[in-house]
C-alpha cells in the first residue's frame, strides 16, 4: 500500500484539513498577539496606535494580576486534590459488588453532564445562599449563624462547585482502571500476607498511577480556564478574591473595554499554561510511558 505514489496522494488528500486546522489555530493567536501590542480601547474606536510592551507592563503590574495568578493556581490545585482523593475513594466504593450498581454508577456520573453555569447557579441559589440555601437552613436548625459562603470564602466555594462537577470524571476513569486490576494478583498478595492497606499501597495504587496521571493532566488543562462558575457566582469578587487569570482577561477587555490589555493578558495566560504543562509533564509524564 505505502508506495511513494500513494504516500504523495495521501499527503495531498489530508492537506486541506491540516491547513484549515492550522489557520484555525494561528489566525486567532496571531490577532491576539497583534492586538496585545496596540493601544486599543473600545471607548475610542479608530484611535489604535502602536504601544510596544506597555500593555504587558500594565497588565502584570496591576495589583489584581498577582492575586489572579495565585487564585488560578489555588483553584487548580484545590480541585485536583479533591477530585483525585475523592475519585479514588468513590471508585473503590463503586468497585464493590452491591445491589443497584448500574443505577448508582449512572447517578454518580450525572454531575458531569450538568453545564457549568447551571451547576454554579444551583449551588449559589439552592445550597450556599445565606437566606434560602439548604446549608443556611441546616445551620439555623442547629442553632448556628448561617455562613455566607460566596462572600466570606469565595474561592473555596468555587473550588467546591468545580470539584463537584469534575469528581465524576475522575471517578469514572479510576473505576475503569480498578476494574482492570488482575484478581489473581490480589489473591496472591492476600496469600503473601498483605492486609487490605498493604494491598492498596503496593498493588492498587501503582496500578492506578497511569490513570491518576491522565486525570491530573486533562483536568489541569480545563481547570486553568475556569470561567463560567466565577462569572455566575461571585463575579470575581469580593474585590479580586475569586478572580483568576481568564476572569481578569475578561474584566480587562470587556469591563474596562481595554482590548489591548486583555490580549496581553491572554498571551500571558497561554505562556503560564505552557509552563504549568511542561512542569506537569516533567513531574508525572513518565508514568504514561510503557
Amino acid at each position, binding site marked *: 500500500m505505502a508506495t511513494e505514489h500513494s504516500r504523495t496522494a495521501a499527503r495531498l488528500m489530508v492537506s486541506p484539513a491540516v491547513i484549515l486546522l492550522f489557520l484555525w489555530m494561528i489566525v486567532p493567536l496571531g490577532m491576539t498577539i497583534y492586538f496585545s501590542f496596540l493601544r486599543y480601547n473600545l471607548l475610542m474606536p479608530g484611535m489604535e496606535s502602536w504601544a510596544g510592551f506597555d500593555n504587558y507592563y500594565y497588565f502584570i503590574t496591576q495589583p489584581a494580576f498577582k492575586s489572579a495568578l495565585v487564585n488560578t493556581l489555588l483553584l487548580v490545585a484545590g480541585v485536583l486534590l479533591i477530585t483525585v482523593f475523592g475519585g479514588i475513594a468513590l471508585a473503590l466504593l463503586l468497585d464493590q459488588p452491591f445491589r443497584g450498581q448500574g443505577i448508582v454508577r449512572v447517578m454518580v456520573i450525572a454531575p458531569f453532564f450538568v453545564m457549568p453555569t447551571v451547576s454554579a447557579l444551583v449551588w449559589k441559589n439552592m445550597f450556599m445562599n445565606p437566606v434560602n440555601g439548604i446549608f443556611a437552613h441546616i445551620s439555623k436548625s442547629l442553632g448556628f449563624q448561617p455562613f455566607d459562603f460566596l462572600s466570606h470564602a469565595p474561592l473555596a466555594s468555587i473550588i467546591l462547585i468545580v470539584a463537584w462537577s469534575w469528581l465524576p470524571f475522575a471517578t469514572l476513569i479510576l473505576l475503569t482502571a480498578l476494574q482492570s486490576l488482575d484478581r489473581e494478583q490480589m489473591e*496472591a498478595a492476600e*496469600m*503473601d500476607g*498483605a492486609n487490605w492497606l498493604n494491598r492498596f499501597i503496593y498493588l492498587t495504587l501503582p496500578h492506578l498511577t497511569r490513570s491518576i496521571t491522565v486525570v491530573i493532566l486533562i483536568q489541569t488543562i480545563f481547570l486553568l480556564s475556569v470561567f463560567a462558575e466565577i462569572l455566575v457566582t461571585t463575579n470575581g469578587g469580593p474585590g479580586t478574591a475569586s478572580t483568576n487569570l481568564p476572569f481578569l482577561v475578561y474584566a480587562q477587555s470587556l469591563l474596562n473595554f481595554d482590548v489591548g490589555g486583555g490580549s496581553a493578558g491572554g498571551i500571558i495566560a497561554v505562556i503560564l499554561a505552557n509552563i504549568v504543562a511542561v512542569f506537569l509533564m516533567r513531574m508525572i509524564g513518565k508514568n504514561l510511558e510503557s
Partner: protein
Amino acid sequence: MGQISLSAVTKSFGDVNVIPPLDLQINDGEFVVFVGPSGCGKSTLLRLIAGLEDISSGKILIDGKDATDAAPAERGLAMVFQSYALYPHMSVRKNIAFPLKMAKLSQAEQDRKVENAARILNLSNYLDRRPGQLSGGQRQRVAIGRAIVREPAAFLFDEPLSNLDAALRVTMRQEISELHQTLKTTMVYVTHDQVEAMTMADKIVVLNAGRIEQVGSPLELYRSPRNLFVAGFIGSPKMNFITGAEAKKHNCDTLGVRPEHVEVQADGPWTGVVGLAEHLGSDTFLKVNVPGVGDLTVRVSGEMNLHHGDQVTLGPQSGKLYRFDANGMAL
C-alpha cells in the same frame, strides 16, 4: 511439616453444589496431583485449601490444627497461580521479597532469602528486571520463588504450566519435580493434563464433578482403575471400551482394553479394517474398525507397516482386560 486433611468438606455457589462432601488426606512431603476434566472442581478444591474461598461446611486441618476459618496468610501455604500473578510494577527481587516484607523480616534476612531462592531457580541474573521483561518460563520461576521464600508448609500449584509451550512445559515439569525432591515439602498440584499427573505425582486424586473417583499412585490408577471414568481418564491414548455382545462373552457390561495391550495376533478374536494410521516413528496408533465391536485404538510398533484400508486381526494381551459392571464399577 505439611499435612492437610479435609473432612466432609462441601462447597456451593448459591444453589449450585460444586463439591459434595469430600474427605481427603494429604501426607507430609507428598506430591499430590488433582486431575480431572475442566469444570470438575479441582481448582475450587485448591482454592478452598488455600482459603481463597470459604467452605460451605466441613473441616480443614493443616498440621492437625483447625484452619477452617483461618485467613489465607495464616495457613502457611504458598500458591502459584495459572497467570503467575506477579506484581507488574515491582522488580523480580521485590516480587520475591514481597511475602517477607509483609512478614516484616529485616532487610538483611530478606536479601539472604531472596538470593538463596534466586540461586535455586537460576534467577540470579534477572533480579533487577520487571516481570514484563521475562519469558514465560522465567515468570513461572519467579512465581515459584515467591512461594519458596516463605518456607510454607505446603505449595499449591494451580495449573502452573498451562500457559507455556509444549517444550518448556516438559522442562518446567522436571524442574518442579526436582524442586520437590530438594525441598521435600508437601505439594498440591492441579492440572487437567493426565501426563503431568502421571509423571509428577506420588498420589493422584482423580476428580469428576466435585467427587473423588479414585486416589492412588500413578501406576495403581493405571493398573487397577476403580471405575470407567478413571479407566478412561488415565492413560493415553484412551482405553478402548467395548459393549454389547462382545462384553457379554466376558460376563461384564463394558469391556476395557488399553491400546498398548492390543496386539496383532494371527488367531486373535477381532478382525477389522484400519481406518486411520498415525505414524509417530517409535509407535503407530491404528484406528481399526472391527465389525460387532466398534472402533479400537491400537498401539503397534513403528516398524509395522500398516495403512488405511489394510485388514488386521487383533487380540488382547492375556490378563490385560478390564471388566466393568452396569454401574461402571470395575469387576
